[in-house]
Structure formats: structure tokens, C-alpha cells
């Protein structure tokens, strides 16, 4: 795909993605004919039941998985891509501070912003601790800080808040919204949690189970204030997921 347009949209076109046969397990068609564009600074949530191929799709967009038919065009922002993984993937032998600092090139002026970033995610006190000494919630916050310190133009997130208790997950979502408002960036966020999808996304892409294709592509019409309102989120959720 050539000729990047001025709009800077991300174009995803996956014709086919197959998991090859391994042992006595047959080859499996994971994704088929998935095509969409993502407007700059939008927050796209890809959702669907587990096993529908949403993480695979994100890995393809990130360039971590190159074994597929189709084309991904990240546009002019392709050098500013950051991935926040399902697990924090911090280096256990480096402190939180070092983990965040390592994401930046040596001598980068943004090193000076690390303390402020640590304050924002509430980890200033824990900056010299090793990740394994901290709770999963704190590790995930550090992973968010590491992603946002880079001021990415495109931020890909793969279920970054799974296996957390509800209050922790909720506070991390608040944190993400806060960070996203400070550094507006294009986000593609994968989750199977419907209310999380509604609360965070400006647009939702539902993958259909079994068919490996897009079942629904819909805009979320909530204001920032409504996103904090449980009832409004639930109402929007029943509107979107009723189909």
C-alpha cells in the first residue's frame, strides 16, 4: 500500500491469517477479510470473546506477527508505535525507574520527565523497587508509564488490565483516560470486557466469534463526564451490544 494520505490514518487490511497445524491440531483460520481505518487521535477498542483473534490482529498491526496475507499501513506515525502488553513485561532485574528510563534513548531530554510521570501513575515512592516486589496493579501502572513516557503517536494495548481486581482495574482505566487526555494519541485497545470497551473507546470494533471477521463497527457517543457515570456506560453498552 503506497501513497500515505495527509490525514495520517492507520489502514488495516488483513486478508487472511492462519495458524499452521501443529502436531495433531489442524490448521486454523483466525482472521479473514478484516479491513478498517483508524482516524488519528481516536481510541479504537477491538472487542470480542476470547479466541476470536483480537490479540492476533493487534500483534499483526504491531508488526510482531508478520506471517499473514494483507497489508498494514501505519501512515506517517509508523515510527512512533508503542505496545503495552497483556502482562507488564518489565525487566525484573531493573528497578521501576530504570525500566521506564530504558524505554528512552540515552541522553533523551524526556529522561527529565520521568519523576513527573512516576508521580502521575502514583509510583514515585516505589521507583527504586524491583517489579517482582510489587503488586500486579503497580507493575501495570509502571508499564503504562513506560508506554506514555515515549509520547507515542500510536499506542497499541492488549488487555492491559486483565486479572486485576475491579477497583484496581477501574483506577487504572481512570489513569489511562487521564494520560490519554494529556497526550492525545491514536489508541488501538484490545479487550473482552464490554463495559471497559464502552468506558474507554470512541469507537468499537467487534470481532465475531468463529467467523474471524468484523461483526460490528460503531462509534461510542459518550461525553467524558458520561464515561464516569456507571448508568450512562451501562445504557450505551446495552445499545451497542444489543445487536
Amino acid at each position, binding site marked *: 500500500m503506497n501513497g500515505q494520505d495527509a490525514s495520517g490514518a492507520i489502514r488495516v487490511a488483513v486478508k487472511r491469517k492462519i495458524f499452521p497445524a501443529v502436531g495433531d491440531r489442524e490448521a486454523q483460520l483466525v482472521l479473514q477479510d478484516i479491513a478498517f481505518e483508524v482516524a488519528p487521535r481516536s481510541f479504537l477498542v477491538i472487542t470480542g470473546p476470547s479466541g476470536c483473534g483480537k490479540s492476533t490482529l493487534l500483534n499483526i498491526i*504491531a508488526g*510482531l506477527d508478520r506471517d499473514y496475507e494483507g497489508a498494514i499501513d501505519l501512515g506517517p506515525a509508523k515510527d512512533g*508505535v*508503542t*505496545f503495552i*502488553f497483556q*502482562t507488564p*513485561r518489565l*525487566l*525484573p*532485574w*531493573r*528497578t521501576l*525507574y*530504570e525500566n521506564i*528510563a*530504558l*524505554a528512552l*534513548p*540515552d*541522553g*533523551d531530554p524526556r*529522561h*527529565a520527565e*520521568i519523576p513527573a510521570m512516576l508521580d502521575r501513575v502514583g509510583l514515585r515512592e516505589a521507583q*527504586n*523497587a*524491583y517489579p*517482582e*516486589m510489587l503488586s500486579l496493579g503497580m507493575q501495570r501502572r509502571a508499564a503504562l508509564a*513506560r508506554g506514555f513516557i*515515549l509520547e507515542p503517536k500510536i499506542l497499541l494495548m492488549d488487555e492491559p488490565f486483565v486479572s486485576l481486581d475491579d477497583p484496581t482495574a477501574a483506577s487504572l482505566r481512570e489513569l489511562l483516560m487521564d494520560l490519554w487526555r494529556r497526550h492525545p494519541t491514536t489508541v488501538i485497545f484490545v479487550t473482552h470486557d464490554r463495559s471497559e470497551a464502552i468506558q474507554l473507546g470512541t469507537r468499537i470494533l467487534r470481532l465475531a466469534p468463529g467467523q474471524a471477521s468484523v461483526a460490528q463497527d460503531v462509534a461510542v457517543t459518550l461525553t467524558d463526564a458520561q464515561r464516569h457515570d456507571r448508568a450512562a456506560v451501562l445504557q450505551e453498552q446495552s445499545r451497542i451490544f444489543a445487536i
Partner: protein
Amino acid sequence: MAPVSTSTSSIPRPARALGFNSTIERFAWMAGSLLVLGLFWHVLAVVLQNRYLPTPVAVFDIMMREAESGELWKHTSATLARVAIAFIFSMFIGTAIGLALGKYKTADKFFDAWLTLFLNLPALVTITLCYIWFGLTDVAAVVAVALNKIPNVAVNMREGARSLSKDLAEMAAMYKFGSWKTLRHVTLPQLAPFFAAAARSGLSLVWKIVLVVEAFGRSNGVGYRLAIAFQEFDVGTILAYALAFILIVQIIEFTILQPLQARVSAWRR
């Protein structure tokens, strides 16, 4: 803020708990149990009154006599030099081989049989063959010792290379670490525990083989001295040299290898 990849980084490191009290307790237990062993030995020697079982005091006297004449230091330093060279040599080559086998599957399939062969080759065979092929020289001695240790290190490091995390490699690629930063902050820390384990088991293996090599074909070193003492059935000297060298190896273990291992695993919960 200084970049993180300089050793003089201004990022404050947490104070590492050295477990001072637990160290003292460990030493107390060790001293106590060795004292009991020594007493047992002494009682046995006094009861048996056999010239082939001298008392610990007699052995200590021999050790002092050898130390004063300079013989003890002459032989232990010769042995230490061979141990050091063989150790460094085999750690270096074994690590290189192990990492290559861990990384390249085809090479691993091919050389696995060689590795098994060398792992099971008796030290005595490599030693005699090295002396026959390369002559009774120090080079032959060191090569023989290294050949015994290299497969051991290689197996350890191959395990380390195989267990490298794909998750962290992906993370490093995504966050554009580049090859130097990836090596220093992602790859080497994962290999360090395997290296430390290989080093610790390596030292004990290497010094035992060095003694055999010296007994066979060198004219100095603790092994040579033990061989002479054996010809004279001089048990006192055998024990004096053995104990002196065990002491030296333990000092190396406590002052270098154990702190090294503690350091590379300080981040663990």
C-alpha cells in the same frame, strides 16, 4: 538525568539487604560442625595410635613447617595459577559454545552427541591423551583440565540460552532497545544465574582435576606434592596440603563467587 546505561548512573539503587545476621549464623554453624569433625578426628587418632592417621595438631604442625620453608606457597600458587587459567579458559569457551547451541537448533542437534561424549569422557583419559599428544607441558595440563570442564559449562549455558524470554525480547524490539541495550539489560541478566551456577560448580571441578594433572606430569603444584607424599606414605603431608588448598578454595567461594551470585539475584522476591 544520566542515561541508565552508564555504570555511574545517578539513579539511586536500593540498599541491598546482605542478611548480616544470617551470614554470622551460617558461619557459626559451619565453625561448630567443623570443630566437632576435628574433635572426632583427634579422638580417633589418639585412640588408634597409628602412624597413618596423624592427629589434627600434627597435621597443623606440618602445615606450619611447610609454610615456613616456603614449600606450601610455592606449590599452592602454582596450582592456583593453573586453576585460574583453566577456569577462565573453560568458562569463556564453554559459554560461547553453550550460547551458540542454545541459539541454533541445527548446530544443537548435531553437536549434542559430541557434548554427551565429552561429558562422559573420564578426566583420566583426557589427561593421559593430552600429555601423550602435547608432551608433559603446562599447556597440555591446562588444555586437559579445560576439556573436562568445557562441556559442563556449555550444557549450563545452553540451558540459559534456551530459557531466554520471548516476551522480553518482543518488548525490547517494540521499545527499540537496539542490540547493545538488549544485550546488557535483557539478555545478560537472564544468563547471569546460569553463568554463576556454572562458575561455582566449575571452580570445585577444575581444582580437583588440576591436582590429578599435576600428580601425573608436572614437577610442582599441590598435586605433585601429594604424589610425592603418596610414594612415601606420608599421610600428614597429604592432609596438610589438602586442607590448605580446601581453605583457599573456600575463601574464593565466600569472597568472590557467593557475593557474585547474591548480586545477580538481588532482584528476586
